């Protein structure tokens, strides 16, 4: 992996500061909205559903259509590792550790064999 130069001609620290502000904006907006929400309300329940859906959509996209280093691996390896992990997860009464550990081990073995 050879190093490539950054092409943006603006100082990286300025871009970083603006990106930090761009993400913090959503966090601050969340704080502002949360101040007016009751935990037992329908609106709170709706936000919970939206948060779950957003995160699940993002995670499945990363596994199925990744970018960066993960993009260099085979879809088959990622899907097989997750499928076997899910079987173990179910067998071990929905145990997160064993599901994750199995998926990791299978993926590691498949990529090491390539």
């Amino acid at each position: 992996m050879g190093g490539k130069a950054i092409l943006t001609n603006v100082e990286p620290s300025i871009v970083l500061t603006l990106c930090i502000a761009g993400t913090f904006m959503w966090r601050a907006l969340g704080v502002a909205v949360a101040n007016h929400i009751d935990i037992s309300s329908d609106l709170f329940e709706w936000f919970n559903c939206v948060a779950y859906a957003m995160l699940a959509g993002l995670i499945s996209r990363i596994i199925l259509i990744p970018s960066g280093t993960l993009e260099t691996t085979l879809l088959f390896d990622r899907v097989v590792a997750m499928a076997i992990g899910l079987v173990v997860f179910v067998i071990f009464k929905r145990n997160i550790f064993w599901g994750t550990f199995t998926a990791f081990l299978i993926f590691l073995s498949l990529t090491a064999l390539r």
Partner: protein
Amino acid sequence: MSKENNFSAFWIGVAEGLSMPFWMVLGSMIGFGSMARDAGLSIEIAIGSSLGIWGLPGQVAMVELMAVGLPVLSIVIASSLANMRFMPMTVVVMPLFKGNWSAYKYRYLLAQMLSINIWSVFTRCGPQLAIEDRLPFYFGVSIICLTGGCIGTIIGFTAADLLPFYLTVSLIFLNPAYFVFVFSSAQTQNCLIAAGLGACLGPLLYQVVPEWTVPVTGMLAGTVAFYFTKWVGKQS
């Protein structure tokens, strides 16, 4: 509340963070550190990005788009949109601190520390804790995850070439794999449906509106899951 209780809740948070989330963040950030170095960024910018943006999709968008030389505004918008999920995540976490004045005082700091790992631990464990124990617990989990993020970025930046490729890429795979199981363990029906719909819709929408995938998936799948569960509840 006594200082001893605060201390104990903090260390329970640290232990919970070390059980899984620390390692997940560490693995992901090794990948990010390596990516930032390949893009020609300095280690200070890489660490600053992990601690400041503190949301991997936004960090990746920033680094990738800087490397292809896009205008600053485009980079900031793409990075910000990739991390839009922090808005509903913060909305769900903050009410769990209601009744604790210290938490209210530090609310923006708490929001800044929030990540997907911390969110999943705190929404699961937080409601079972006494109100006054939630803040030290949250700090415990957050500090251990931020430490993992920082160490991971440094390892990825300085030593990624020393690790075999299959190990580096498997460490990056660890975090998304972990969250598939976290979401599959959701306790409430509406969250399970929202996660299932979101998981199906995310990759499909990515083909059509790549930059808007996260918000559109959340709004569509979340709203359908919410109303569907309400409708099922009324029928039974």
